[in-house]
């Protein structure tokens, strides 16, 4: 705990990444990335979606292995021979080596290897078991034992209480994790990381789901950890957080580390480094002179969650033929839920969805399809594709009933249609029989969109249409959006990629905490204007976090 406390900028180097490269089928996710982390430093990892941040931290937490390049860390053995030696140096900060002298190459093959090296990661999706208590989660898999080999609940609770106090979390160790709100879950994750003698803490967009007070609490805790010599890799999209918390910034762009700059760097410069190109060129939106007739009208759409808190409330808007309407907002603002409700995937409690003035039945996907809607879901692999089926089967899935006569499917027609749309979308494939799993992310997304082109959908709802696909494929998707709207169709696009929403939308709807916080025409939609609306707290409503806090203060 002593040793390297005050020399923040010159702290001992804990971790170095050298020339790390990683390819996935169709995408080079990382291409010669360099980065270093010192003790007592908050190192911000900055980059657009798909720039390679996630791949990099997954590599550090043992989920991926680099194709080329080295990772160096100090201390423990990174599992050289599988279950090799256990780290002997758990007393962090005790080593006197200066600079990189104490670093050695490590191979992080598993989460256990990462743990041995003192690396802990707080992912956006928490790794907690909802049915277990806070204490059980913190010590999951390493519960203290009594002499008889049973779990020593008393010691576990005491240990947990101490850790909870360190993260200033005022809940009982016996509270089931399921009763906690997101902010508290995050604190439990941090407490768990602390219990592992973590020297390197990786936090993947920890502030994305927090309210501003919660962010302050988190920052306080992060600063304390920094004081105690922990090295922190911090991922955020909020540029103002960089100056407030960070020490250094590594900027990733298209899988490369393009710059390492001090955290005091001006925001415009950071954006320039991050985007690296002219926005206009990246988002080739051709806006229509005048939008056409209203296609979709949503009125007063409301759905209540299981605890009575609204998932979304009083959502109303209109989409006209030829238009791209973007929906911006923070993750968890209810955007995806609204899209699913419109498409009939989930039911809603009040309101109406009208297409061409005719109201759609609630919770009926087929009715939405008949009316000319199509949904490209946010989770391409989990909800959009049959990964092990052929391109043809995937492309024709949504028109299966249409190609059926007397119970028999016209496979010939399906093949012709699939070939037509695959050609039009310029899908790079070996043939229609190729399994979709083996396509690149961009081509997979073309398949999901192509599926709806084959149903002659007139309004496509695109939920995170370019997540995880490379820049070239993104531009192709944008061109496709242009083609669709030019032919009189409309697009409703949800995206967490703010430049994308601003660059492609004719109008931007901003959602915040389940409500429509505002609507901005393209000319007025700037990053600042959108973020201001997105962070706006709904007036006079109980937020999810507040309701989740009830009942958790058992103490």
């Amino acid at each position, binding site marked *: 705990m002593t040793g390297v406390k005050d020399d923040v900028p010159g702290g001992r180097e804990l971790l170095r990444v050298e020339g790390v490269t990683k390819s996935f*089928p169709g995408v080079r996710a990382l291409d010669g990335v360099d980065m270093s982390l010192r003790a007592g430093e908050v190192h911000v990892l900055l980059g657009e979606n798909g720039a390679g941040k996630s791949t990099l931290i997954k590599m550090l937490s043992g989920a991926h292995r680099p194709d080329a390049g080295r990772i160096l860390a100090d201390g423990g053995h990174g599992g050289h021979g599988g279950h090799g030696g256990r780290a002997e140096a758990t007393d962090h900060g005790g080593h006197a080596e200066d600079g990189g002298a104490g670093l050695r190459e490590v191979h992080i093959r598993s989460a256990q290897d990462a743990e041995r090296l003192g690396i802990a990661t707080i992912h956006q999706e928490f790794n907690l078991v909802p049915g277990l208590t806070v204490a059980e989660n913190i010590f999951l898999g390493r519960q203290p034992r009594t002499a008889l080999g049973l779990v020593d609940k008393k010691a576990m609770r005491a240990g947990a209480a101490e850790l909870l106090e360190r993260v200033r979390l005022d809940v009982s160790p016996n509270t089931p994790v399921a009763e906690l709100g997101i902010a508290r879950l995050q604190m439990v994750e941090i407490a768990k990381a602390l219990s592992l003698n973590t020297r390197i803490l990786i936090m993947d967009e920890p502030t994305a789901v927090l309210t501003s007070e919660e962010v302050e609490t988190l920052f306080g805790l992060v600063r304390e950890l920094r004081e105690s010599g922990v090295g922190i890799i911090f991922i955020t999209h909020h540029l103002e957080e960089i100056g407030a918390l960070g020490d250094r910034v590594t900027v990733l762009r298209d899988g490369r580390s393009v710059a390492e700059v001090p955290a005091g760097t001006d925001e415009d410069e950071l954006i320039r480094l991050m985007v690296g190109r002219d926005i206009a060129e990246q988002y080739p939106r051709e806006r229509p002179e005048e939008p056409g007739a209203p296609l979709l009208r949503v009125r007063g759409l409301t759905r209540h969650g299981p605890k009575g808190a609204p998932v979304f409330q009083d959502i109303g808007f209109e989409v006209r033929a030829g238009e791209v309407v973007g929906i911006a907002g923070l993750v968890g603002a209810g955007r995806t839920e609204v899209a699913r409700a419109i498409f009939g*995937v989930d039911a809603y409690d009040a309101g109406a969805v009208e297409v061409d003035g005719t109201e759609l039945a609630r919770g009926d996907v087929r009715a939405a399809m008949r009316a000319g809607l199509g949904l490209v879901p946010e989770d391409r692999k*989990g909800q959009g594709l049959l*990964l092990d089926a052929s391109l043809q089967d995937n492309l024709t*899935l949504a028109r299966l*009933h249409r190609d059926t006569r007397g119970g028999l*499917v016209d496979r010939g027609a399906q093949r012709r249609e699939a070939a037509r749309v695959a050609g039009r979308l310029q899908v790079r494939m070996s043939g229609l029989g190729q399994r979709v799993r083996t396509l*690149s992310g961009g081509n997979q997304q073309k398949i999901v969109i192509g599926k709806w082109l084959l149903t002659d959908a007139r309004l496509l709802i695109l939920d995170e249409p370019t997540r995880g696909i*490379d*820049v070239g494929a993104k531009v192709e998707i944008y061109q496709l959006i242009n083609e669709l709207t030019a032919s009189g169709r409309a697009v409703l696009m949800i995206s967490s990629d703010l430049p994308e929403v601003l660059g492609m939308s004719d109008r931007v709807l901003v959602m915040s905490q389940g409500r429509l916080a505002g609507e901005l025409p393209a000319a007025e939609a700037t990053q600042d204007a959108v973020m201001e609306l997105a962070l706006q707290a709904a007036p006079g409503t109980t937020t999810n976090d507040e309701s989740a806090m009830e009942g958790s203060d058992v103490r």
Partner: protein
Amino acid sequence: MSAEVKTGVAAEAVGEAPARDGFGPWFSRAVLRNGPLGGLIALVVVMAVLSGDFLNGQNLLNVGVQASVTAILAFGVTFVIVSAGIDLSVGSVAGLSATVVAWAATAEGLPVVVAVLLGLAVGAAAGLLSGALVAYGKLPAFIATLAMLSVGRGLALVISGGSPIAFPASVSNLGDTLGGWLPVPVLVMIVMGLIAALVLARTYTGRAMFAIGGNEEAARLSGIHVKRRKLVIYALSGLFAAVAGIVLAARLTSAQPQAATGYELDAIAAVVIGGASLSGGSGKASGTLIGALILAVLRNGLNLLSVSAFWQQVATGLVIALAVLLDTLRRRSAR
């Protein structure tokens, strides 16, 4: 666009290579490449070498007869497994349907045609009920069909009072031969196999099976009524089980309430040996037929070799494990 060109399959291909070295490289490669069919051919060759009686025409037809009930059950189970479900009830549904046919025709004196239709309807209804429990009751398929296994067997015992009922003579002809040499069960197996192949490859329900098994959420978001399809899928499985039950009873010339006990496991084994994945999305009628034939050839051959029934069970278990193991390796190397 540049990243497309750089497409590196390397990322995944670095994984474990298939076991090329080790036990007989030629043999393992041949089996790996050709899958279940290669396995069947290899098994037939081995049996023909070990026993002079194996390759005679009459014996091969016997193998066909022995495979028929398992194969017909397995065709139905293929539908369920392709859609990522499981049906444990087919053995007892087969027993129940056969019992209903015999009871209706023999005890109640209904016309044979009506009795058979009733038996088929009972099978389909049992499947429909399992399907409803799975689709609307949200029970895991394992549990829903386990319950149906028990209910079906119980009802068969209730209806029959626990003792065999003679099968109507006209239906028992199903157990005979056609033209003096072609066993009718084999013919029924072939017809049901063709129907199963048609259902899987060409019908709406069949294509929906693959979609649901491949990714249920994606299927739902593409406008497939997943719940309704599940009803149809389990009903089809029940219907095929009823046909299998009637064929079995015809061979035995009586409906025995305990008939086909445990056959569901053979049927599942046949489907899996045939290359279908229990996680859904893949499977073929031809593969399932081959799977059933592999099991039948193994039993028949081991009988000819006078291997004890106890050891036969051990051998069957090993073959199931080996078949799926090889299939896993094959898939991995194909990736």
